[in-house]
Each structure stands twice: as C-alpha cells, then as structure tokens.
C-alpha cells in the first residue's frame, strides 16, 4: 500500500531531471486531467443516470417531472420528513449547547484537556453506529426489566414515543460530536479567541456577555457549519432509526422503494443535490466573509 500511495503521489514527478520545472508541470497536467476525468465520470454518471431514471416516461418514452411533483403528496413523506427535520433541529440545539461551552472552555481555561476531548469526540466517528445501537437497545430494555413501575421506566418509555423519539436525538448528538467539535475547533483556532475574551473581560464584560457578544459572533460560521453537517447527518441517518424501529426520512425511502422505485430514487437524488447546494452556499458565505475581513 505504501508503494501504491507513493507511486500515485509521485506519478506527477517522474519527469527527467535536467529542466525539472517545465517538464514536470506538463506531465502532471496530463496526469491530473486523467484523474479528474475518470473520477468525474465515476461520480457524475450515477447522479445523471438517476435523474434520467426518474424523469423518463416508461409509457411513451418522453420526459416528465411527474415523479418529482408526486413527492410532497406521497404517503408518509410529510410525516417522516417532518420528523427528521424536527430531530435534526433538536440535535443541532443540543449538540451546540453541549459543545460550544466545551470548546471555548478547553481553549481558554483547560488546554490540558484538549487531547482527551479530541479523542472522546473522535470516538463516535469510528464506533460503528450499529454497535452503539445495540448498547442503546440494551439500556432501553432495562426499563421493563428492572425499573418497571418506577419514574425511571416512565422516563425511558417517554424517550421512545414514536411521534418524537427523543432517544434518537440523544444518539444523534453522540454521532454528530466529531463534526461539531471539528468545525468549532477550527473556528476557535482560526480566531484569536483568547485575546478577544481577555479584552472583553478587561473592559468589564461578564462571562455570559462575553459568550453572547464576543464568542458566538466570532464562531458564527463555524457554528453554521457544524449545524449544517449535523442536519445532513441526521437527515441521512438510517442504521439507528431502523434498528430501533422508528420511521424517519431514510427508513421511509427504504420502505417505499419496493413499491415505488422511481419515487425512492427521485427523493434520494433530490436530497443529495439539495444538501450539496446548501453546503456550497454556506461555503460561499464563509469565503465572502473571510475576504471581507482580510481586506
């Protein structure tokens, strides 16, 4: 593997030594083009083919947007999508409430804990969600087994109401930690938060005021980024919802795919493209703000 990686990385540089620069550039151009072409085809063909699959009319061979028009009215769509959006919103709020103070605190007061927090927040990235959900199921099974008739059991049952499963919110907060932490951490490192907060404190601002008027505005794009990645994660999460038996947006897609194949593909493609456009918009905002500040 080492050799493979090196040969890929080094493929741009196999030109003869003497006039190193120009020949290397030319060789690397052709190589770059080939990589972009092959991977471009690989990534664009499935999307293009899916769009074609959804707009072609099976009967007379024409093109129709009928499938896309049918999405909002599809059985169960509004309910599942609405629930997923609600879960996403709750997850974002909870994850930010948890992580913004943590990141700020680690940066300003407890830099020694940085490595520990980093490792802790990275854990969900590699912990298989299916293993996590097995654990969650076992914990939830305590309610009828050990706590029956106590308030604890009542609380645990309340977590699992099918209309708004709070347990999913809790699990999603854990799953979103790596993304939220990384986005916020990048924001904190990019800004000179320590100086700014010290200045604010010296001018007599209270800690809540520092958080509200200094930290949050500085971290605005990071917070936006974190929130967005969390929303994408929650809208696409299938494993946990499916194993715990709740119907969310992705489990709904899988459920209808048997009877309405075109509809399931249409919703899939639409969700991917819309998410991508939103992320592109956020990155554009980010950049505009960045250049404005630096100029």
């Amino acid at each position: 593997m080492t050799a493979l990686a090196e040969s890929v990385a080094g493929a741009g540089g196999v030109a003869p030594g003497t006039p190193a620069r120009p020949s290397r550039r030319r060789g690397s151009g052709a190589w770059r083009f080939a990589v972009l072409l092959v991977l471009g085809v690989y990534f664009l063909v499935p999307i293009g083919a899916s769009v074609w699959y959804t707009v072609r009319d099976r009967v007379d061979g024409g093109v129709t947007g009928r499938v896309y028009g049918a999405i909002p009215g599809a059985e169960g769509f509004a309910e599942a999508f609405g629930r997923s959006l609600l879960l996403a919103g709750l997850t974002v709020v909870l994850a930010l409430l948890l992580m913004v103070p943590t990141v700020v605190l680690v940066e300003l007061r407890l830099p020694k804990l940085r490595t520990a927090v980093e490792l802790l927040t990275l854990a969900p990235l590699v912990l298989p969600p299916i293993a996590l959900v097995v654990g969650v199921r076992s914990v939830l099974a305590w309610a009828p087994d050990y706590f029956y008739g106590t308030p604890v059991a009542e609380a645990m049952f309340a977590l699992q109401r099918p209309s708004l499963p709070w347990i999913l919110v809790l699990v999603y907060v854990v799953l979103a930690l790596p993304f939220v932490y990384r986005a916020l951490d990048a924001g904190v490192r990019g800004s000179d938060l320590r100086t700014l907060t010290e200045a604010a404190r010296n001018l007599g601002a209270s800690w809540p005021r520092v958080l509200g008027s200094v930290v949050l505005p500085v971290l605005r794009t990071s917070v936006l980024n974190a929130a967005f990645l969390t929303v994408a994660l929650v809208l696409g999460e299938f494993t946990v919802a499916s194993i715990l038996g709740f119907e969310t947006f992705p489990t709904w897609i899988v459920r209808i795919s048997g009877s309405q194949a075109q509809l399931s593909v249409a919703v899939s493609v639409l969700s991917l493209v819309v998410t991508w456009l939103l992320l592109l918009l956020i990155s554009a905002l980010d950049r505009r703000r960045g250049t404005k500040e630096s100029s």
Partner: protein
Amino acid sequence: MLAVEAFRATDPVTFEETWSTGSITAITEGPYRRAYLGSLQLSAITAVLGAVLGLALAVAILRARRGRLLRRLVLTASGVLANFGGVPLAFAFLATIGGQGVVTAFLSDTLGIGLGGFTLQSMTGLAVVYLYFLIPLMVLTIVPALEALRPQWREAADNLGATGWQYWRHVGGPVLLPPVLGATMLLFASAFAAYATAKALVGSSVPLVTLQIADALSSNVVVGAENLGKALALGMVLLVGLVMAFYAWVQKRTQRWLS
C-alpha cells in the same frame, strides 16, 4: 459531556452483563465467521482503493491553478457524500447499474453487451458503491495534510537538484505517509461500520457483520439471538478499537511535522 460519557460507558457494561461464552464461541464459527471475514475483506479492499483514488483526487484538485471553483465544488460535494449516509447512494446506484438501471439498459439494448455478470448485489457491487462515499471521505481527511506540505521543502529539494521522484521518495512521501495511513484506517473503520448501503442494496444475501447483527436483533425465532447480536457488536468494537489504537499511534508520529 457527562451525559455522553455515561452513555458510552454503559455500552460495554451491558455487553458484559449479558455475556456467556456461548455467544462468543458461536460468533467465531460458521456463518458469523464468514460474515466477519467478508466484512474485513470488503473494508480492507475498499479502504485501500478509496485511499489511493482519494489521494489522487485531492492532489489533482490542489494542484489546479485556476481551480478555486473546482476545489470548492469537490470539497463541498465530498462533505455531502461522506456524511449524508448510504441510503440515497444505494438507490442512485440501483437506478444506474441495478437490474433495471439506466446504464444497464443502455449497455444491453444499445450496445448489445451486458455488465458481464456484474451485479450490485455482490461484494464487487458493494465495493463500487462504498467507494462512492469512501473517496470523498479520503479527500476530506487528506486535504489538510497536503496543504501542510510546505512549498519551501519542494523548493529546497529542487535547488539541491532533486528530481520530482527523489522529492516524493525522500521528503513528500515520508511526511505524508502517516496521515495517509491514518486516513486509510479511518476509511477502513467507516467501511466496516457501513450498514445502510448494504441493507438498502442487498438485504442480507452478502455475508457482512452489520447485516448479521441487524438480523440477530430483529429475529424473534432463535432463542438468544439478541445476545448473539451483542457478541457480534462487541467483536466489531474490538476490531475497530485495534484499528483506532493504530490510528492514534500514527497520528502521534504525524504531529511532529504537520503542526
């Protein structure tokens, strides 16, 4: 933080409480052993392929001179594909090269050739779909490391008369090796844990641990299947833990150069 920690700590405890050596020996035999091997094999192959292709793509978009737009397009698309999850990808591929897929139909109707016995409902098919989110993940992970390669190193090597190959062999390669290895581990863990894609694509016809766990959990027929699922999950956690330990070790070595 506390809630999260408590949450995570409870998982192993519940495993241990319901343990009996019976389920542990059971999962090292027969179909479960096959499932572990299948998962490991699929993850290893897709992780290496994804790492190589992702690295190539990352280098290609970073080298582009007028490529700011291209770069942003690729990076945001990578963010979506790597995070959004497998269900939409599975359906996009079904519509493309599945049994009724557009490309399948085009190949067999217009060109008169089929897919040559290829089906999505196989290990190869899964690998093709997995790469669709593993390559973006590699790009996202490795771009910071590539950006940290200082141009001065390249210039110094050039001034000393090094060829491009020598530069990569003695400077770029050794510096990039730890992050590339680390990213490959991450890809491996991600492919190993993938469930949604496989579930949406193949049901449970391919031996994969995640599918077996889901089967065990939803089974009402076999007595003790729930414990079997837990044992399988524990096995996964252990394997991923090993990979993670290696990743942490690699990361420690990286920090020296790329800080």
